Each structure stands twice: as C-alpha cells, then as structure tokens.
C-alpha cells in the first residue's frame, strides 16, 4: 500500500513544522498580537543599531531617559495588544476598572495566567490589562498569605470545569487558571517556565535584592519589552486558539532535533568544534533552525539543562530581529546557575540560511571575538555544503522519510516518541483530523491525560491502552523510551502492536537522524 503522494503544501496555520504561526498569519484578529510583536522587534532592532539592547538595558537598570521612554512605550504596545478584550470594550473607562468580572469574554477564557509580587502588586496577566485587574491580584495575595500564616502553602483550587495552580517563588506569586485538560502538575510546569524566563532576564539574586530593598517595586519596569517572551511560553497550547506543536515539547520538557543525515551533522559539529575549541571562555555553541536543534557543542564538563535549552528556543522563536543583525546580550540560564549572566552572541548564519547560531560565553567583552568565530564557522559550513543540506531540509514542508513512514501505517494518526536518555522528542506532522482547532484541542487533551497518568508521582503507570469513542490511545514506557500514540478507533490490538513494533524499529534504525545521542564537546 505504498501510494506515493506528494504532500500538498500546507497553509501556515496548522502545519506542525511551522511553530511560528502567530508570526506568519496576518490580518486575522486573533493574531493581532503577532503583528504587534513584529513591530516591537523592529523597534528592538533599531535600538540595537544605536548600540543599546532592550534586554540588557532593562536589566542593568541604566537610566537613559530616551531609551527608557521608548522601552516603556514598547512595553505598552506589547502588553495592551496581548489583551484580547481590549478590542471588545474600547469604551473601558476609568470608572469601570473592576469590570472584568462582568466581561464574559475575559471571564470565560480557557486559560489565565497571573503574576504578582508578594505585596500583591500586578506584574502580568495573560488576558486583560493587569492594572485593571489589580483588585483580583489583591485577593490572590491575601489568600496566599492566609495559608502561609499557618506555615503552609496553596497548591491548587478545583471547581467544576476550572482549576487553579499556584506557585510562590522568590517574591513572586504565579497563578494559572485553566479550563483545558492540563493537570495541575502541567500547569505548574507552565508557571515554572515563566518563572525561569523571568530569572533568565534578571537572575535570581537581582530579583531577590530588588524586592528586599523595595517591597513595593513594580517589576513591570524590569520586564518591559520582554512580554513577548512570556507570552510565547504561555501561548503554546490550544487555549490560545492556535494550532501549535510547541505544546508537545512543553509537555515532555524536551526539544526537537533537526533531522539531518549523520554525515552532515558530523561535519557541522566538527566545523563548530574546530572553531570553538581554542576560544577562551566560550562554553556553548547552539545551532537552531525551524525551532529544532541542529547541534549543541559544549565545553567538556558543562551541559545545558532541558528547561534552559527550551528558554533559548523560546528566545529565538520570538525574536525576529536576530535575523537582521547579530546581537550580543546577557542571558541567565537558571537551571545552570540562577545568579549569574552569560553573554550570548546570537545571529543567523547567512541571509539565505535561516539557522540561528548562539555562542555563549562568560566574558561580556567578547562580542568581537564571537563575531569572528561565527564568521569562520559559517564559512566552513558553506564550503562543506552543510548550509545547503540545512536549506534542503527546511524546504520540505515536513521530513520526507518520517512522512513516508507514517503513510505506511495509515491508522496511526500521531505519536510522541521520547528516548529516556535524552530530553528530545520526535513526532510527525499533524494530519487529518487534527488540523482544525477543535480536533487539535482533543489531541492535546489526550496527550495531557496520558502524560499526566503515566507520570503521576504517587501512582505512575507503565502502560495505558484505551479504546475511546473516536480513537484508540496508547501510552507505553519502557526502560529506553516513552511512546504516546493515537490510532483510529477501528484498529484492533494486533494491528496496534504491529504498528508500534514497526515504528520503534524504524526509529531505532534512523535514530541518529532524529536524535543526538551525546552532545559533542570541545
């Protein structure tokens, strides 16, 4: 049954390979945010030309009045645009500040995220202007404080159809409210991501000291210009009315690897290795394209934690302006060391090759050195035709081999495969019926449920096989991998087992194309 079908080019909104749908889709009111973030990045780029960088400015607290004002207006444009109901109630006047309670759109949102200081001052709200929600933030702070008074801490609240996850870390209180199928643990992972994103911008010690000295500090000032980073982490699921495969890597705390023939990846790695090894203080080199990892090369004895790597991916995904010119900015990798900054040289290889290279150093003055390292790497990659290979893979709407494999097992609709030894994930393109939003929501709910039950801390499971109305679902954990798969409902057990077997064998055969076993060192 090997029918050769050329995949029809997919439109942007639902193809899993393009995770930046929100940046691509224009003119759609739901995607307003994307447009405005584009604008924001254009400004950021401008700032860079002036020799400043939005992120480092905000962090270092240097007061350059002009810059501050433009940073602030940036913050304003990004934050008001992210609030979906502003377009609805443009008559919102000073009088009706607490009107969110009567705003059924706001109230009925599938997901809310609130961040506040320990004083109860609003810092961020996914939906709605956080100023206008100040009263709600006050309530949250008091509820948290009451429980704390008894040497205890709120973890979650459950009501019919909606659940709330709470997190209190280092002067910040974070709350997630969700009507989706995400479990409390999964919501806490989301809050954790956001918290680490904030740390990545400010560092833990800076955050603590700030609030230690000034309990009334308005953290929005420090985060001005970075809302898109937070938003992108939170907008990874269907509650944001878009189909995005970021949810899969999020749920499994992993990243995807850019599929390449072993030889090509080898060449790329050695190009990086040879140019990085003698460079003092250069610790990590990360090459990313299309939200997938091409290579990670590191100084011996040092490694990047999956959560930190996801933050790096998030940064790249959200920042279009990296494409225009190299950037040099401070970045904290919280899981590695939450109190210190690295400096990262971030640039795209060439105008033709949209692969992004990060060179991470401990020396904040090494910008020029990194620039020349980058040039040499790029040269070498060009000569060895690696850039061409990367571009070839990028031009395919989805990886051909994987696609063929999926075609040969038509009742297998989708799967997630994660080896135990790495935090990397493999999954195929989204196919019918999961391309519409409502069906994608269902798929998402299925994976949330499977992952939650498998990884339940008190009573984990090794296998789940479930016959539901519209699909057969399977979750399977072995010593070497985790597999989550969704089949058509008519399929029988024997076929499921046969397909799983076939898939696993194929993956093992093609392992080095889709996974990186060990990150090379220099």
């Amino acid at each position, binding site marked *: 049954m090997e029918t050769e079908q050329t995949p029809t080019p997919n439109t942007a909104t639902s193809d899993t390979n393009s995770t930046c749908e929100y940046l691509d889709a224009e003119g759609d009111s739901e995607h307003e945010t994307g447009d405005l973030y584009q604008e924001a990045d254009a400004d950021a780029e401008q700032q860079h030309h002036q020799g400043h960088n939005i992120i480092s400015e905000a962090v270092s607290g240097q007061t350059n009045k002009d810059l501050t004002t433009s940073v602030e207006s940036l913050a304003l444009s990004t934050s008001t645009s992210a609030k979906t109901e502003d377009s609805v109630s443009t008559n919102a006047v000073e009088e009706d500040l607490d009107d969110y309670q009567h705003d059924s759109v706001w109230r009925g949102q599938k997901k809310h995220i609130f961040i506040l200081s320990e004083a*109860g001052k609003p810092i961020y709200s996914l939906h709605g202007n956080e100023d206008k929600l100040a*009263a709600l933030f006050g309530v949250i702070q008091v509820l948290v404080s009451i429980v704390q008074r008894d040497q205890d801490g709120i973890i979650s609240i459950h009501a019919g159809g909606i659940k709330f996850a709470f997190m209190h870390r280092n002067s910040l209180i974070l709350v997630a409210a969700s009507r989706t199928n995400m479990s409390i643990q999964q919501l806490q992972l989301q809050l954790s991501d956001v918290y680490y994103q904030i740390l990545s911008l400010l560092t833990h010690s800076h955050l603590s000291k700030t609030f230690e000295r*000034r309990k009334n500090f308005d953290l929005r000032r420090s985060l001005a210009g970075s809302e898109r980073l937070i938003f992108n982490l939170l907008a990874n699921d269907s509650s944001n009315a878009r189909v995005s495969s970021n949810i899969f890597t999020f749920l499994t705390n992993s990243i995807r690897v850019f599929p390449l023939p072993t030889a090509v990846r080898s060449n790329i790695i050695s190009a990086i290795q040879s140019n990085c090894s003698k460079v003092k203080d250069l610790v990590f080199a990360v090459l990313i394209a299309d939200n997938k990892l091409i290579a990670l090369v590191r100084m011996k004895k040092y490694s990047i934690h999956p959560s930190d790597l996801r933050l790096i991916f998030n940064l790249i995904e959200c920042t279009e302006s990296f494409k225009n010119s190299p950037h040099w900015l401070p970045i904290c990798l919280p899981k590695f060391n939450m109190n210190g900054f*690295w400096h990262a040289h971030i640039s795209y290889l060439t105008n033709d090759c949209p692969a992004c290279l990060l060179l991470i150093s401990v020396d904040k003055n090494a910008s020029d050195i990194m620039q020349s390292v980058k040039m040499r790497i790029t040269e070498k990659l060009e000569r060895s035709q690696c850039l061409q290979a990367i571009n070839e893979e990028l031009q395919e709407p989805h990886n051909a081999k994987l696609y063929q494999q999926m075609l040969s097992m038509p009742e297998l609709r989708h799967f997630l495969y994660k080896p135990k030894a790495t935090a*990397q994930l493999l999954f195929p393109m989204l196919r019918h019926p999961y391309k519409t939003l409502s069906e994608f929501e269902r798929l998402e709910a299925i994976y949330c449920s499977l992952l939650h039950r498998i990884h339940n801390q008190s009573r984990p499971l090794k296998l789940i096989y479930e016959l539901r109305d519209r699909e057969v679902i399977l979750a399977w954990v072995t010593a070497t991998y985790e597999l989550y798969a969704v089949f058509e409902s008519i399929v029988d057990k024997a076929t499921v087992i046969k397909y799983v077997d076939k898939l696993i064998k194929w993956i093992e055969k093609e392992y080095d194309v889709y996974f990186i076993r060990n990150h090379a060192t220099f």
Partner: protein
Amino acid sequence: MATRKKSLLKVIILGDSSVGKTSLMNQYVNKRFSNQYKATIGADFCTKEVVVNDRVVTMQIWDTAGQERFQSLGVAFYRGADCCVLVYDVTAPNSFKNLDSWRDEFLIQASPRDPEHFPFVVLGNKVDLDNRQVSTRRAQQWCQSKNDIPYYETSAKEGINVEMAFQTIAKNALEQETEAELINDFPDQIRLNSENNRPGNADNCQC
C-alpha cells in the same frame, strides 16, 4: 492628554471599624461595593485611576477590616504599600485616639524604607453629623506633629475632599518613588569553576 506611563500604587485604608471607611470607598470608587471579602479574608479591594502631573496612576486600594483576628495578616496586607489613608470619625473620639496606634502598627508591620517620609493622609469623616467631638484644630495639630500629614475632612454625602485626599497621597507617593534610585547593581557574571558544574543533576538530563 495624559501620557500612559504605567504606575501603580498600593494604598492601605486604616481605621476603626465604625468610622465609615466602606461608605467612603463606595462613594469614591463610584460603584456598587458589595463588601465581598472584608468579613472573610480581612480586606476589600478596588482600583481607581487618577491623573497626577500628567501621568495616569492606578491605585490598588486595600480597605482592611481591622479586626483583631486579622492582625496576624498585617505584615501581608501592608507589605509594599506606597501610602496609607487613616480614617477616623469626628463624632467618635476613640477613633481619633486610635489613629496613633493604627499609624504605629502600620509602620512596624510595613517597615517602609523611610518611615519619616512615608506618605500618610488623614480623613476626618462624618462631619455632616451634629455631635462632632473632635475639633479640626486638634486633628490638624496631631497631623502636624507626625511630620505634617495632610488632613482632610469629609462626609459620605459629598466626596470632594476624598478626591483631593487621594490626589494628594498619590502625588506624595509618586514623589517618594522618583527620589529613590533604581536598583543599579549589575548581576554577577558566571565564573567557570567546579562549583558551577552540576553533572549529577537530579534529572540527569542532558539535552
């Protein structure tokens, strides 16, 4: 036209329970105040925007209950407050006498950086009633003795002084802000040594 530079002030309202804080707030914030949380978790909240020096400022107003059973929450309530409104009832001398302890208690629990200059405002409420017992002069004297706290008199019937009181306190609070320097220290750079290296991470997860 006011520019929209964001600023948010946490405002605490303190005073004995019968002085009429709630009706004052009701009137000032101009909406149906259902007294939702005061009796249960110790404070009610509302927001109000004012314009100060061409700047739009949001006030997060904490109307606290003040009952003894909520005393242990004081630190939480007052944490990070930018300013504080003290309310008493001009017909109830005890409520005036208690202003001292309200203020002291607040300063202890909130421990602001600069207690001498912490923005307070005093509101003498219920001036429309006949049985006034605390004179304006007396109240003003007290206010002056406490580093010149601005003093206003009002009644639930007409709100004009309330507006001015909040306007004043917002202005004073903002002044405190601009005087303080932004935190200026630049965080540490990573130092490469064996401490930073965590190969045996709990997740043991390389990517």
